[in-house]
């Protein structure tokens, strides 16, 4: 990267403009993946192709790469490469290194040029959406080189929902960065060595308008259990999609014949909680938290048949265009009509073992390789 050794101590780059630091959604195309990661690049392309995607912008990996002062970078490098064996205290040692990295990153102010770039993009987004400073956004990590062999490492990075205002956005950009140095992420990186997953600082961040979701979830264009490509499977809950994605509930379930759109199976989930706006401590704070789901909602399906069919039809179109089965996250906004109410939040090639990595498991638990 061209910025090495020049962006220390918060001084601005001579040759880095806000245009390089931030890309707005409308300007993003799929070949931007090296700057902002495939997740955000795919989303920008989807919007350009006329799909309904929440408005937003991306902070580029290049901008983040030049940010940390030299001392902090070499300290981080030490954390990254420090020997961790059972002799050094194993996982506790790793957790201690991770905490050092977090303090190092979150304690570091962003350079003024980067703050300015983000503030400008945030301003324009607040204006475009008409919501002003009340606008809530999702701050999502978007790892560069996320696809392929490194895909499972991308799961180590964090996403933060319900963030408002430039200052909070900037703070959460730093948190995304620091999440690449969690104990889990460090352990993962050691197991696979440097060649597979990306370096921690190959990270971009997406900032998207948070869809005020009535219901949300995922659709797979193949049956994730049997691998059957003739059916789509939809899983969803009331509220934001986090309760589904993080496995906190048994979601409502639909299986749909991809060719005819006929709903083959409907199964009511066990939905005792949902994700709603509010801080972890109470109702007032920022963010999204889990809350008990009101009993009347818990006992009813969170999507209409029309909605299920529409989501499957669009996902099938997408899979056909991409040439491989897709796993798509979506949300249904309150108070809009179909089809406008369905927003597509991200899509990726379906990896059947997303929830279970047989290779990592075999190394750790079957072959019992020390340190994995």
């Amino acid at each position: 990267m061209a910025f090495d050794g020049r962006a220390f101590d918060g001084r601005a780059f001579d040759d880095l403009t806000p245009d390089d630091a931030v890309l707005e959604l409308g300007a993003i195309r799929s070949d931007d993946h090296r700057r902002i990661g495939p997740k955000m690049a795919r989303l920008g392309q989807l919007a350009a192709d006329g799909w309904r995607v929440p408005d937003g912008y991306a902070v580029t990996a290049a901008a983040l790469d030049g940010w940390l002062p030299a001392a902090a970078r070499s300290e981080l490098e030490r954390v990254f490469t420090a020997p961790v064996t059972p002799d050094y205290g194993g996982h506790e040692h790793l957790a201690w290194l991770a905490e050092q990295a977090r303090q190092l990153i979150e304690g570091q102010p962003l350079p003024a040029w980067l703050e300015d770039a983000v503030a400008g993009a945030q301003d324009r987004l607040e204006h475009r959406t008409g919501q002003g400073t009340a606008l809530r956004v999702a701050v999502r990590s978007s790892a560069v080189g996320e696809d392929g062999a490194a895909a499972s490492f991308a799961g180590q990075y964090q996403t933060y929902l319900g963030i408002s205002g430039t200052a909070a956005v900037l703070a959460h950009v730093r948190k995304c960065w620091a999440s690449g140095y969690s104990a889990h992420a460090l352990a993962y990186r050691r197991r696979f060595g440097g060649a597979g997953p990306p370096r921690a600082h190959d990270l971009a961040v997406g900032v998207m308008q948070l869809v005020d979701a009535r219901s949300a979830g995922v659709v797979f264009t193949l049956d994730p259990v049997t691998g059957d490509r003739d059916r789509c499977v939809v899983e969803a809950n009331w509220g934001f999609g986090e309760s589904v994605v993080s496995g906190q509930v048994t979601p409502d379930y639909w299986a749909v014949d991809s060719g005819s759109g006929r709903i083959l199976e409907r199964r009511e989930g066990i939905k005792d909680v949902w994700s709603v706006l509010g801080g972890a401590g109470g109702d007032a704070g920022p963010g999204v938290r889990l809350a008990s789901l009101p009993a009347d909602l818990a006992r009813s399906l969170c999507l209409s048949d029309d909605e299920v069919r529409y989501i499957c039809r669009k996902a099938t179109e997408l899979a056909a265009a991409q040439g491989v089965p897709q796993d798509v996250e979506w949300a249904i906004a309150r108070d809009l009509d179909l089809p406008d109410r369905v927003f597509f939040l991200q899509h990726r090639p379906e990896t059947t073992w997303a929830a279970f990595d047989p290779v990592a498991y075999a190394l750790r638990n079957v072959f019992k390789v020390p340190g994995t």
Partner: protein
Amino acid sequence: MAADSPRVFPVDEFVRDELYPGYRQAFGSQPFVAGPVRPFSRADNARYWLRDSLHFSEGMVPASIALLDDAQTWGAQLGAEIVGVPPTRGSVNRLAGTHVYIGTIDVDTTWQMQARAARFGQYVGPILADFDRYWGMRAAELQAAYDHFDALDLARMDPGQLWTVVKDAYAFHRRAWFIHFEVMYVLTANYLAFYGLAEEIGLAGSQVSGFLAGERTFYSRTDEELWRLAARARELEVSEPLLREEPRSVRPRIEALPHGKTWWRELEEFLAAYGQRTEETCRIDTPSWIEDPAPALHAIASFLAKPAGFDFYAARAAAIAERDAQIEAARRAVNGGDLARFNGALASNRAANFAWWNEEHNYLIDRRAAIPVRRATLELGARLADSGAVTRPDDLFFLFKPELFEVMEAGSGSGSGSSAWAELAAMVPDRRDYFEHWRERGPSLPTMLGTIPRTVPDPIMIEVFGLSGHFLETLRSESGAGAGSGTGETAAEIRGFPAAKGVVEGVARVITTVGDLHTVLPGEILVCGGTTTEWTPAFGIIAACVCDTGGSLTHAAIVSREYGIPCVVGTAIATQTIKTGDRVRVDGRAGTVQVLA
């Protein structure tokens, strides 16, 4: 010097006996990843050696040794090295007489384990994520080679062309076995991860291969075809000679019957599609079914003895229903994140299914890869016999590959009358006697030699060969009197791995070599060292199966579930404890076998 004659820079001044003063490099010390096939040496007492009667029950002729080298020795070692299997560098082989024992090369330093783990992750992940395409590529490569070799008209070739085919066939054999182990290590890791996860979340690991049952393979289709031919034999009224005559003399008897020619034509159509297979692995001396259809004829005859036939449709429907019920029960037993992991592991194993591949790959590799070498060697042998260099075409089976290559390369293909050939040919009768001597000793050889360990560190050996703690303990404590005698009760009880559920009582039939398989009668309980693909037809007529070796991944375990019969494997001592004619009770869920009388 003419412009087109080759230029030679002589090596003469560099020719030496020794690599360095005092060190003479031994033959075979370098070309292998870890070590070639060797006879036992005293140092081998320090570790365990398992008799591999599963794959090589009758012993190896000299020419088969090179094929064994390609397969379980070099192929396994290179596969383990390239895939980066953390705990093992593959297998090594020793010979007791002509019989094959297998040992493993354990990786025993932490650094090596970790370094291998790193490259293992990089190698295996992408393959598992896209297994269909990957195996499709390998299968197409193998099939293209068979298309090439099968189409060659060897009889019309000149000696130089024919020798080239021999060399090509050996080169292909080696490549085929690398593919075998590359894929096997990748798939076993996937399977073992699922097995480990199942145990971790409170399910039984022994259930896992049941979750993967119900897939059709090349061999299940072969079996269906054999049953169909048995039904056709009844319809076309050719059953009598099939039941009474030996395979060698049956054809004229059948063709003398009114519909006999029709039936034999159908048999030949079957052989054209399914007959490129031999009875054992790496054995140049075993014919393909096309050369000698005796195994197919034996199978059909034994099916005729069960007039009700075997309802494959019902058996598969039952196997699938049983599988799906087990999966549903497992899903109800786990929840939340464990359920997601279970589903992920199941999806990964369905997409890259060891239980399926274990049967399917035999047709493309184990039972077929040596056929091009055999065909070309026999044709070469026929030419040499015509010229008087050897007595019979199959005399070449009793030469080691380096011997054959040396004499052929030196004599550029026409070695008749040379002293080298005379020397080699003179050894053949003794070597034939040696093979015969050891073939007879085969059934009495110990299951294990060397030092029997308490545990085996390589989980792949445990699942494929069944080297569980119980198996090893049984061998360690074996007194020669059989197991279970300590209780003083009338019924001796043998324990093993519960491979397929169900309880059955019946008469035992102890079989030590696949050649005797046709003696099994419908309703008997098969007791054997272990089974492979060639034993599959028996599963349609037997009531249960008991094996000395094997774990959840072995052939008998997988096939028993498909055929819906109880099965216990990894008993260590069943063939020594049980006698043909004993009445036994097999409990496939408990993993026990009782000898009742």
